[in-house]
């Protein structure tokens, strides 16, 4: 997840009175203790303590291996594939191909002109120039063709996600029952780490573009659905009443009033969907999506950070441009009588003229001499860094020593502690945490998710992954909240940080993997380091925003009472921003999990390695079980850290 939705509602809730807070919490814990007192002796007597009991596991490897064989053997003959999946697959291939051919036909000049002029119409001169510059930069980095491939893939994936999301959102917006039913589904879709569900799509569609597009749709459709529903529900009732009094049919009301009124939310949904889809571009390269992601992935294989960066930068540029352009379109949607709507035909004509001119001059391909080699200097910098930081730094020790200490003093104790805990006590802890922070429903989901992990027979590796997540989240929170506080209290820090955070948030995770290995060696430590880097921006942002939104009146009164700056922070700002801090924890956990799994590629082991193994060896039994366990782990972690009433905020 590259972009993180930050809360927009004011976090200025009243501080809860301790007495009120304590009573329901105590009641919940008491109830749980009673349940435990009855069930634990039973469970202990029946299955023993220690790791998850063997009697409660179900072995899926045989049926999964059979299913996998069946699909491969029947994929060319069975009607299900010939008449259903085959058409989906062909449709995707045709769609991507059509867009790709169109982009190639426009040529680099045409695409740059079209992008720049469209951005200019939607967001002004600066955005237009910026967009054109971004396209030129993609070409200058020698990535023109891969950029066009990724763009073609994105166009189709985003259109499909928007279609799926809009249909789901339309349903949820018009029917309360569907809304209730969809909400947990969408929640779950957003929590799932994408790496975990690549395998099933690959099995059905094979390696390549169709599988990549479908995996992207699963990942990117939820924000669209959520925001469509939100927009439809939020339509001004007075306007609707007025339209109704005119005697219009429900269909007319929908088309002429509710959808236009929800335009802002729809565009925001589009924006979020684009960002999510782009962040999938690289992960999908593991299953042969091609394009920029594939270049990053190939560069990784030859340990070439510079080349990975050269392919990563266009992804960042595309993300920034698309974010700004759709953002500008969303803002523009508010004022209907925007000047310059007449400019469109001119803009399009200009773009067409440029494309035609380039075509006549025979300059469709990016000129091969116009590339800038950034790989060599970047690699030199990385080499220098690792040569001087890896070990033997006086006093503080090298990064390898840190990694060793972190592994021995933090990861190992947490892992052995978790694995030492009796299985039922893990379930109890999960239940208690989830119930204290949410409702009995969240607690039940969390416990069932954890139990499912045990039933799948991957209890030990799952706890290994969990230990890495906990360690990474701890580091992320310490660093992230501290930075967030600094950013909230000092505008200069904030200004400096903003572009850095932008880059970290959109830079594909794979680009980090090699530098972290070079710095921290192979093992769990680099996985944790990469996860921290990736999750940090979201935590910093949410913390800073939460602190800034603290009611100025409260701050003012604290100041007038003579509170020092430190007292203001600890006794006013932080308690008042509690909700934002909880959201930061939640987002931190979800993002960390996503990267810790990819850490399987640098020696993180555990579930991440199993997923990678399943993908590499086509071993559905290993890969899918590990994927399912990751999904359960994600669900559990989300529920345990989920502040109540998050639904209204997330994605908005």
């Amino acid at each position, binding site marked *: 997840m590259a972009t993180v939705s930050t809360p927009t509602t004011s976090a200025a809730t009243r501080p809860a009175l301790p007495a009120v807070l304590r009573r329901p919490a105590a009641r919940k814990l008491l109830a749980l203790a009673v349940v435990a007192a009855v069930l634990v002796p039973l469970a202990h007597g029946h299955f023993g303590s220690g790791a998850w009991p063997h009697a409660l596991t179900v072995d899926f490897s045989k049926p999964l291996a059979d299913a996998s064989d069946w699909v491969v*053997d029947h994929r060319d003959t069975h009607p299900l594939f010939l008449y259903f999946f*085959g058409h989906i697959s062909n*449709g995707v291939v045709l769609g991507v191909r059509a867009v790709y051919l169109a982009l190639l036909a426009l040529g680099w000049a045409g695409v740059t002109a079209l992008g720049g002029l469209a951005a200019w119409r939607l967001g002004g001169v600066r955005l237009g120039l910026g967009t054109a510059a971004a396209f030129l930069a993609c070409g200058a980095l020698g990535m023109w063709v891969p950029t066009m491939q990724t763009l073609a893939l994105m166009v189709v994936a985003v259109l499909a996600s928007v279609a799926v999301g809009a249909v789901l959102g339309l349903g949820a917006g018009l029917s309360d029952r569907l809304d209730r039913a969809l909400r947990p589904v969408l929640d779950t879709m957003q929590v799932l780490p994408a790496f975990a569900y690549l395998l099933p799509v690959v099995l059905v569609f094979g390696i390549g573009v169709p599988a990549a597009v479908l995996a992207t749709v699963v990942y990117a459709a939820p924000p669209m659905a959520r925001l469509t529903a939100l927009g439809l529900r939020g339509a001004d009732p007075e306007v609707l009443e007025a339209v109704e009094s005119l005697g219009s049919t429900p269909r007319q009301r929908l088309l002429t009033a509710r959808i236009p009124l929800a335009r802002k939310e729809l565009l925001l949904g589009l924006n979020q969907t684009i960002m999510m889809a782009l962040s999938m571009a690289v992960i999908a390269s593991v299953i042969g999506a091609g394009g920029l992601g594939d270049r990053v992935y190939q560069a990784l294989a030859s340990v070439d950070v510079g080349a990975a960066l050269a392919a990563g930068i266009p992804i960042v540029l595309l993300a920034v441009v698309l974010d700004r352009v759709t953002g500008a379109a969303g803002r523009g949607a508010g004022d209907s009588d925007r000047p310059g709507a007449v400019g469109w035909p001119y803009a399009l004509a200009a773009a067409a003229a440029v494309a035609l001119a380039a075509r006549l001059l025979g300059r469709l391909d990016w000129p091969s001499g116009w590339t800038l080699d950034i790989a060599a200097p970047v690699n030199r910098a990385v080499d220098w860094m690792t040569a001087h930081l890896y070990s033997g730094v006086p006093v503080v020790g090298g990064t390898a020593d840190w990694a060793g200490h972190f592994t021995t003093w933090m990861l190992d104790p947490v892992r052995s502690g978790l694995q030492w805990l009796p299985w039922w006590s893990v379930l109890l802890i999960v239940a208690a945490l989830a119930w204290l922070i949410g409702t009995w429903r969240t607690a039940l989901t969390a416990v069932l998710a954890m139990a499912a992990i045990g039933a799948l027979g991957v209890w030990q590796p799952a706890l290994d992954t969990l230990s890495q997540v906990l360690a990474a989240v701890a580091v992320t929170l310490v660093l992230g909240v501290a930075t967030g506080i600094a950013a909230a209290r000092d505008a200069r820090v904030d200004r400096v940080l903003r572009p850095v955070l932008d880059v970290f948030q959109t830079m594909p995770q794979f680009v980090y993997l090699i530098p972290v290995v070079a710095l921290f060696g192979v093992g769990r430590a680099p996985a944790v380091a990469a996860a921290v880097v990736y999750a940090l921006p979201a935590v910093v942002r949410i913390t800073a925003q939460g602190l800034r939104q603290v009611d100025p009146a409260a701050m003012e009164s604290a100041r007038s009472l003579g509170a020092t700056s430190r007292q203001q922070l600890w006794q006013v700002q932080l308690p008042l921003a509690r909700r934002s801090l909880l959201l930061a924890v939640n987002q931190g956990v979800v993002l960390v999990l996503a990267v810790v799994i990819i850490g399987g590629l640098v020696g993180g082991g555990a579930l991440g390695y199993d997923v990678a193994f399943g993908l590499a060896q086509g071993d559905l039994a290993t890969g899918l079980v590990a994927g399912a366990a990751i999904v359960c782990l994600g669900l559990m972690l989300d529920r345990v850290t989920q502040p109540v009433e998050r639904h209204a905020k997330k994605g908005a």
Partner: protein
Amino acid sequence: MRVRTTALVAVALSAVVAGVTTGCGAADMTKQASPFANAGGAKSVTLSVQSWVGAQSNVAVAQYILEHKLGYRVDTVQVDEVPAWDALSQGRVDALLEDWSHPEQEKRYVDDKKTVSYAGGLGVTGHIGWYVPTYLVKQHPDITDWRNLNKYASLFRTPESGGKGQIMDGSPAYVTHDKALVKNLKLNYQVVFAGSEAAQITQMRQFAKEKKPFLTYWYTPQWLFKKVPMTEVKLPPYKEGCDTDADKITCAYPHTPLRKFLNADFAKSGGEGAAFLKKFRWTTEDQNEVSLMIADQKLSPQEAAKKWVDGHESTWKRWLS
């Protein structure tokens, strides 16, 4: 408003087009070329690249010759071997240039379904084994026999190996029996998976820089030997069939002549490109030369291929005749 309607019309139109072109009759899952193939009327070939550098070298040189001598447009997709077989059978990629023996896939796709066809040897023989750096062998000459490994286990301890010695394995895509070997040979070692070849190489170079001891799963041909000289550890010798039961293995890895496979349709009707790929055959030294340029000197695969092609005209001329 106008823009929105035109966009809507465009979307609807493309949906209709997609529906008309795909909607009638059965879809053929064995003909699923990449959408980026044959773009703009150019003849094109899609090559699968595996994650190790040797495979990148094969592809780089093949790509260079296809593009510059035969006028093809080449697409490359990074896929591990097993999924590459599947992609070959569907036509998403046209060629797999370096296969390290996958009997199960071969039986399924070549013999039964006939969607993949054998395209001759690569000319390179692969061998997997356990390796220690040569500087370590100078200090402990008897370390190269598996029987002595337990004596040295403490040398190889790392934070990840849990008190035992660490043997580092690489990418999950690789053929490995190391877990079974460690268990069956009663070695006091822990297999630690680096998770990718990139991570493994990075770690080995860091170790070598400080002359630290390490024991690793590794293979030839490999360019890294030129940078980090390593010596193979003798395991109980390989005999035909000693690796059939993966859980009971106690023998070394075999020497495997590496082979090429093409999509069956492409092999039949792929014209010059397919004929060239069938003839493509070079030596271990050739491959290492290109690999070293890519991985160590950090040339782009295309630059490395150009350098090699410029210097070895007699070799590649044979592939085109």
